[in-house]
């Protein structure tokens, strides 16, 4: 199982790197999907079966489909790819890379100085996840629900089609 874990982790890291560096948006999204699937495998091995399933259903299956959908509608061609390539010059990624490196160093410091937590690899049943969601993390769930509701109302408002009356004489009476 340990080998599978490290294999999945390596696949996740490599595919995420490709997802960042590809200049073709759809190819980048494909690598992102692979990355999500690899992370799902990692979750599965750690015993969080329910989270693994949700990772595939929600992230790989729904959110990225929406991304691909939007990218397809934008009709990006060779020109966009060129401009994306320009963004990959040292000038533009140098600054963020330094900042990210500081964060990475901090993370590594924390991981190596603190006692690492050993996961006991016990399998978490879906029922346990449900119970903890509706007791311990009740408040978080409710807040997320309110946020989603706000999102839906906002989307409804933005997508609403205003009725236009094109009649020569009756127009402008609304």
């Amino acid at each position: 199982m340990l080998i599978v874990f490290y294999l999945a982790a390596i696949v996740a890291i490599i595919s995420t790197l490709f997802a960042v560096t590809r200049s073709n948006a759809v190819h980048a999204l494909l690598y992102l999907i692979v990355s999500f699937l690899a992370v799902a495998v990692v979750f599965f091995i750690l015993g969080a079966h329910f989270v693994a399933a949700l990772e595939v259903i929600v992230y790989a299956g729904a959110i990225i489909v929406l991304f691909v959908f939007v990218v397809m509608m934008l009709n990006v061609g060779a020109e966009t790819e060129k401009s994306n390539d320009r963004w990959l010059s040292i000038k533009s990624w140098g600054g963020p890379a330094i900042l990210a490196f500081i964060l990475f160093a901090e993370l590594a410091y924390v991981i190596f100085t603190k006692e690492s937590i050993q996961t006991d690899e016990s399998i978490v049943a879906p029922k346990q996840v449900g119970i903890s969601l509706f007791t311990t993390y009740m408040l978080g769930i409710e807040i997320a629900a309110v946020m989603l509701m706000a999102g839906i109302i906002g989307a409804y408002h933005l997508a609403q089609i205003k009725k236009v009356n094109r009649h020569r004489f009756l127009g402008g009476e609304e």
Partner: protein
Amino acid sequence: MSETLTYILIIVGVLVTLLTVAAGNIYIERRLLSLWQDRYGPNRVGPFGILQVVADIIKIFTKEDWIPRFADKVVFVLAPGIILVTILITFAIVPFSPDIVIADLNIGLLFFLGLSSLGAYSLVLGGWASNNKYSLLGAMRGAAQMLSYEVFMGLSLMGVVMMTGSFSMVDIVEKQKEVWFVIPQFVGFVIFVIAGLAESHRIPFDIPESESELVAGFHSEYSGMKFGMFFVGEYLGITLISAIVTTIFFGGWLGPDFLPPLAWFTIKVFGFIAFIILLRASLPRPRYDQLIGFGWKILLPLSLINILVTGAIILSN
């Protein structure tokens, strides 16, 4: 015989059976369709025309497999594989009989939902990589349709999950010893069949394909065996939906003792395949906006009410 060897035998057996059934479905569909349309159908090659499928397969293998110059080659080649792979993997959780099940996961049902949502990529990427207006339109319709119907597909099954108290397919079948879930969960069953048809984009929900307006939709540019894979994927999809409906709502392998469990399962699955073909023979294709509107305005509230009522009844007992 060691346990590992048994599993390998089961896996190979399931794989070979499924591919045969998928090819056989083409023959069954053509014969049944012609029966209902009052004509003969394929009846020349072999007894009752049963070798017609073999002839078709030989033909499709020898056709020129052309990749358009303007296509995105890697994605173009990748797309038809995705649908076959996702559907074949999903069969791992289907319990064919008490002994023949590849993986009895405790998240079985979620595994099915996750992989069926990954199947959408096949169609979306195929349409996008073809770099053709009609293909892209088909792919976009397909993405919207599958994304919407996934939601009700998941919600319609939650009633069954609540009554069983588990996502495991074997548990769900065992729970139906007294009464099949189609009776207490009839609303869920109807919604699931509709959503399942939409997920496998069959007539009447073949809007990504709609050959009367979009040439052949998302697979307009595909030829040879790549088209063949989309085609076989569709028939595998029908088999999968039939198998899942049988398992979840019609008691899976359960049945009177005079036939073995596997036989009951097979009979039920083929009954559903015939039903889906009958739907194709009898229903027209709705308009795109009608389909999406029907889903969000009728199926979504219905499935939510179904969950609410099921929950209330379970709590009151």
